[in-house]
C-alpha cells in the first residue's frame, strides 16, 4: 500500500516535469535506484525465505531417499521370504528321502537277519546229518 502510494506520487511528479526527455531520465533513474533498493531489501529480508526454501528442499530430498530405501528394504524382505520358503520345501523333501532310505535299510536288515537264521539252521541240520 505504501509502495503503491509512493509510486503514484512519483508518477504524478514525473508527469509535471518540463520536458519529455527529462521525464524519461527521471523515470530511468528512479527505476534503477528502485531496483537497487529492492536488491538490498531482498538480500536482507529475503534471507529467511531462501533459508526456508533450502530447508524444504533438503527435507524433500531426504524424504525421497527414505522412500527409496523403504522400497528396497521391502524388496529385499520379499526376496528373503521366498528364499526361506524354498529352503523349507527342500528340507521337507530331504526328510522324506531320509525316512524312505531308513525304511529300506531296516527292511534290508530284517531280510539279512532271516537269511542268517536260515543259513544257521541249514548248518545245524548238516551237522546233525553227519553225526
Amino acid at each position, binding site marked *: 500500500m505504501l509502495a503503491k502510494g509512493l509510486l503514484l506520487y512519483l508518477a504524478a*511528479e514525473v508527469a*509535471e*516535469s518540463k520536458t519529455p526527455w*527529462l521525464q524519461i*531520465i*527521471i523515470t*530511468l*533513474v*528512479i*527505476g*534503477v*535506484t528502485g*531496483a*537497487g*533498493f*529492492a*536488491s*538490498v*531489501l*531482498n*538480500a*536482507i529480508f529475503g*534471507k529467511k525465505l*531462501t533459508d526456508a526454501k*533450502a530447508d524444504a*528442499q*533438503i527435507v524433500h*530430498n531426504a524424504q525421497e531417499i527414505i522412500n527409496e530405501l523403504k522400497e528396497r528394504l521391502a524388496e529385499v524382505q520379499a526376496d528373503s521370504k521366498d528364499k526361506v520358503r524354498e529352503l523349507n520345501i527342500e528340507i521337507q523333501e530331504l526328510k522324506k528321502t531320509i525316512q524312505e532310505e531308513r525304511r529300506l535299510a531296516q527292511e534290508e536288515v530284517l531280510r539279512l537277519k532271516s537269511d542268517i537264521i536260515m543259513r544257521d539252521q541249514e548248518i545245524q541240520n548238516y551237522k546233525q546229518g553227519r553225526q
Partner: protein
Amino acid sequence: MPYRRFAYMTSRHQPYEIMLFIAAVSIGLSYFGETPPKSLEQFMPSWFLTYWYISVLVGGVVGLITLVPKRRTRRELNIVLNIERGALLIITSAIFGYICAILATARPIGSAIVASSLIFGWMSAGIVRLVQIQNSIRKLSEDDNAAARVV
C-alpha cells in the same frame, strides 16, 4: 581451450569502489549543509533533487556496510554480494542523472564534456563491477543448485 566465464569470488572490494562509497556518503551528507551544484538545481525538480541526494547517501552507507562483515560461508557471501549490487545500482544510476544534468546545463559545452566524461568513467567502472558481481551471484547460485540436485 574452451571459453569459461570468470567469476570474481574475491572477498575484497576494489579500491575505486570503496572511494566511490565514501564519496557518495560525503555527497549525500552535503545536502544537509551545503547548497547543491547549480547544474543539479537547474536540471532536477526539487523533489527529485531530494530523492537523488537521499539515494546517493543510502547507496554509499549500504555500500560501506558491506565492507564490515567477514564473509565466512557461501550464503553470507551471496547476501553481501546482493547488497553490494544494490548499492552500486543506486549510485550508478544517480551518477547517470548527474551526467545528464551536467550535459544539459553546463556551458560552454567543452567544459561540460570534460566534467561529464570523468564522471562517465566512474559510472562505467561501476557498471563493470556490477557485471562482475552479477556473474559471481549467478555462479554461486548455479553451484548451489548443482549441490541441491546431488543431495
